[in-house]
């Protein structure tokens, strides 16, 4: 049986860099980032948009990359965890997550960082409840969320106070 997959040439921007790849229309953006571009920071925890481990920004909007097709990235701008630090300068959230021990196994961490970066851009002074609801789609099974929420609130405070 011969199967000739129809593959589409996709040109897009990832973390500011122009990239291109060939995608079967069935492949998700997550598959393409990981398997074609070597960007394995986004993780597949569920493949159904329920866990948030694959969070990326698409044209500045927080999405699950498992719920976006690779072909949909044509002409768009994608930002992943690999683009969060400026060179070797960690984003304040990244530094604060290490300082506050806001991760145990770390598999959910890239998704949570990408999601909270989007939150703080939109709302620099979120309440605990707002942080919790914003992150409801980012499952963490290790921490009980406590130290994550504290790290986000502490980062927001530092950023507001210009620390």
């Amino acid at each position, binding site marked *: 049986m011969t*199967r000739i997959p129809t593959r589409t040439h996709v040109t897009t921007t990832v973390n500011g860099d122009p990239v291109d790849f060939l995608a079967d229309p069935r492949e998700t953006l997550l598959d393409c980032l990981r398997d074609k571009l070597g960007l394995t920071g986004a993780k597949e925890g569920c493949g159904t948009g329920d866990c948030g*481990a694959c969070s990326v920004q698409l044209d500045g909007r927080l999405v699950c990359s498992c719920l976006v097709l690779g072909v949909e990235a044509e002409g768009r701008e994608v930002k992943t965890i690999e683009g969060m630090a400026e060179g070797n300068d960690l984003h304040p959230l990244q530094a604060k997550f*290490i300082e506050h021990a806001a991760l145990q*196994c770390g598999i959910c961490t890239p998704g949570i960082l990408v999601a909270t970066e989007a939150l703080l851009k939109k709302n620099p002074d979120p309440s605990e409840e707002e942080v919790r609801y914003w992150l409801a789609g980012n499952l963490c099974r290790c*921490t009980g969320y406590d130290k994550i929420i504290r790290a986000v609130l502490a980062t927001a405070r530092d950023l507001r106070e210009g620390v």
Partner: protein
Amino acid sequence: MALDNKTDFKYIGTRPERPDGLDKVTGKARYGADAYAPGMLHGAVVRSPHAHARIVRIDASKALALDGVKAVVTRADFAQDLEGEDWNLLENTIAGEKVLYDGHAVAGVAATSALIAKDAAKLVDVEYEVLPHVTDVDAAMAEGAPVLRDGAADHSVPDGLHPNVVRYTEFGRGDVEAGFAAADLVIERSFKTEAVHQGYIEPHACLAQLGTDGKGELWCCTQGHWFVRRMCAALLGLEATQLRVTASEIGGGFGGKTTVFIDPIALALSRKSGKPVKLVMSRSEVLKASGPTASASMDVKMGMTKDGKLTAATGTFRMQGGAFPGAPMDMTTMLAFSCYELDNVHHEGFDVMTNRPKQAAYRAPGAPMGAFAVESVFDELCEGLGLDPIDARLKNAVKEGTRSSFGPKYKAVGLIETLEAAKAHPHYSAPLAENTGRGIASGYWMNWGGETSVSLAIGEDGTVQVGVGTPDIGGSRASMALMAAETIGIPYENVRVNVVDTAALGVNEPTHGSRATYASGLATIEAAREAIGKLCQRAADKWGIDVDAVEWKDGAAHPSGPNAGDFEPLSIAEIAGEMGSTGGPITGHHDASPTGFGGSFGTHIVDVHVDPETGRSTVTRYTVIQDAGKAIHPDYVEGQFQGGAAQGIGWALNEEYIYGEDGRLQNDVFLDYRIPVASDLPMIDTVIVEVPNPGHPYGVRGVGETGITPPLPAIACAVSHATGHRMTRLPMSPPRVLRAIQGKGVS
């Protein structure tokens, strides 16, 4: 090894940044699915859509005809003539004559892309003869229940029980009838819990390479790569040391990654295709066909005098662990009454097979169910007798020298200390809002030592590398580095701890049983001490004095005794810099199966609000108090406390395996397998109690598992108090709680 009674720690007890932090916040850390190899194929697994069926025929011809498909494996591609647990493991990995549960693997496929592999798996034609099935523990023991496998019961099972009962235990002491007669109040209740999943966010994943020469390489996410090596070697007929297993960073395990599911299939596909094969489970496969925990049906009876002294207790615990022996009824029975001093106590346990996946360990396996039943009855006794539940626990709490309910006496333990801390905590006396109840419960996990091998080497610049064999799930590399730094007297930053592969050390048991910080930590300290001895010898040689006259402190050799002050101290860097010309590399090594692991008790306080109109429960406040012996890195001790509580909250309120009439799993996605999300939980307060473990030089007790034991009863008691109805079934889902509120029972 005895307690040093050291209290003036320089590094231990501090909270430095973890060594893997940078990689984990930047996306660079490599987990199970993050490995790629040149020429790699992708695997997929063909799984049973039936709960119980005979395999009549497997026809892979259409799959093999698909372009890009390189291999299909079935049971025939694995070792034959296995027995006992190896046979169970193989049968669970890939079905033989029968499929035993929804999702049971039947065949594996390898192809040049993941999409082709998935398409090919659909083309493998399997003909089934469907058989009657059973998924409930009580139903599986009942007369007339479908038999999963005749002759599976072991020596422990008395005659006359259903063939699905495969293991049995019974033990106790004293005269329970006399004990109940002496009680002022006796409560007897039946309880039921549903199976739950560990819910690690990282699905099982591996990259396998195996040649026809029997040499192999395996990269996988696991809690224990030597376990993986042993199991894969057995299932594929390999020599153990010919297979090198490397543990990736691991995205959660909680016991569920102490066994194998897909790794042997990937190896078999690689051997057959001659190429590396990557195999990754989907979330649905994880929920259907990895190793959830047992479900339980339990009867507990306890008697108490009016001043709060327990007089007798009995418990019967029936547990199903899927289609194989192994439900953790032994741990349930041994630990059910472990908090209390009891002269009259009796336990009975049943391990029952059902058409569900083979259970695996889940954080304190077996203990939470027993605690749910026992602590709920204890609470009801207190309620009935008008006693404060902490005071009553203090009257019965075990301490050093108390004979445990399972036999031996306790060494130094911290139950009383956690209860006293709970009583003193502001949470315990805080006023309660309307429709809110408060629950208290204690729990225990006895911990574990296990085979352990650690190597330590001094670098040429005086820094230190430590190779351990226990994968780091929650920050254990930081803890090992702290212990090495403390022992050698060098800064934490000068120690790098690596989780090394199976070729680099002797056998290590997994990171399980709350043993890693205890056992690998102990071996790290011993290895460091051995290296210190060698460092001192080099200094002694240089100074021309006896090694006994050299003292090691603050990372340097000092002349001591009659030679004190005769020579300038030699720092570790100075000695290391000359290693090559003073006798060669300096290392330390330690192998052991340490037995001085000390158990950890915990007491939890929880407030739960229940909506009287909908039965929906909300945890509004939570406090964990637990004995850590000595907290090496308090952040990660707190993290274990908080994570255990969160998993317990999920188990108590919303998580459950739901099987349909057809025996198929109905909730195989995170949408319907409802683990707690961030907005479900409050902050989880922690209190670290430190009653040093005499079996560890720095007093460490494992802390990983105890934290999931008290939440089930604590939350059930809180809901019971909020609603005025005793909750005896988990999960306490809104429909169930609403029925209780409406007086329709708790079923």
